[in-house]
């Protein structure tokens, strides 16, 4: 009954897509309008926290090496930290805006984990290509949440932050267990099953 890994990627892709849509909507209308309904203020931080929690079973059930376990565990921790910090800020339990630095930290840790735990080259298979691409995307796009800490009203940074999650979702949707990338597939990668 355990799903193949690609299905897990697609389910998380849906979570990231929703996260991106919520953040994009908040960036478009601004905090005042977005937080007119209390539940909406908790929406994306809660979803980020939930995705972090759901990463734990992924760590437990989809561990095919120590480095995979460490990568999934680090994603779970930083997603919960960033989501939890934002929840604390929204609730008023936390006050310093510097708690928002947990989000660029999550981006950097996640990106590094993607890059470090992918042992194969870019064109080994589609999953290897996507791991490299997602890793570098997260490292580079950490600039958006980082800049938003110091310029919280900047539409550019907030939109960039939101669209990063949409792009991550698209990349995760492209993931397959074994599939070629631009016609390249290493003979060691296995046989594409679909």
């Amino acid at each position: 009954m355990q799903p193949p890994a690609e299905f897990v990627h697609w389910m998380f892709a849906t979570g990231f897509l929703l996260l991106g849509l919520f953040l994009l909507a908040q960036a478009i209308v601004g905090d005042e309008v977005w937080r007119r309904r209390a539940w909406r203020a908790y929406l994306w931080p809660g979803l980020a926290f939930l995705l972090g929690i759901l990463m734990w079973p992924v760590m437990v059930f989809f561990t095919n090496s120590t480095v995979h376990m460490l990568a999934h565990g680090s994603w779970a921790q930083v997603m919960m930290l960033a989501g939890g910090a934002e929840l604390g800020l929204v609730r008023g339990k936390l006050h310093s805006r510097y708690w928002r630095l947990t989000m660029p930290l999550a981006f950097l840790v996640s990106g590094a984990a993607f890059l470090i735990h992918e042992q194969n080259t870019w064109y080994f298979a589609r999953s290897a290509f996507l791991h490299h691409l997602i890793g570098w995307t997260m490292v580079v796009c950490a600039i958006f949440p980082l800049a938003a800490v110091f310029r919280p009203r900047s539409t550019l940074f907030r939109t960039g932050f939101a669209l990063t999650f949409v792009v991550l979702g698209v990349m995760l949707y492209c993931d397959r267990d074994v599939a070629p990338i631009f016609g390249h597939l290493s003979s060691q990668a296995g046989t594409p099953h679909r």
Partner: protein
Amino acid sequence: MSTQLASERAAVRRRTVRAMLIWALGPATMLAGVVWAFLQPYRITLLHPHGQGFWWLAIEPPLLVVLAGIVFAFLIAPGVIEDLDAEEHGP
């Protein structure tokens, strides 16, 4: 007086553009899922369910994208647009 009128009109126009963007996000997401389904119809296993396992039938990426669009369009967007309108008319 005319400067004040012009700035009020500009503010209303900005709110209208924002409302349009919020309204369009859900349908645009749904459309992306539908386009994807046409480009890769073999991903819609419900069209040929015979011999498919649970996960292949339950998790179909283009349908997940459409679902995300539906969630946003029906659960999030109406309230946000309503609140934008309230900001325009209310105190």
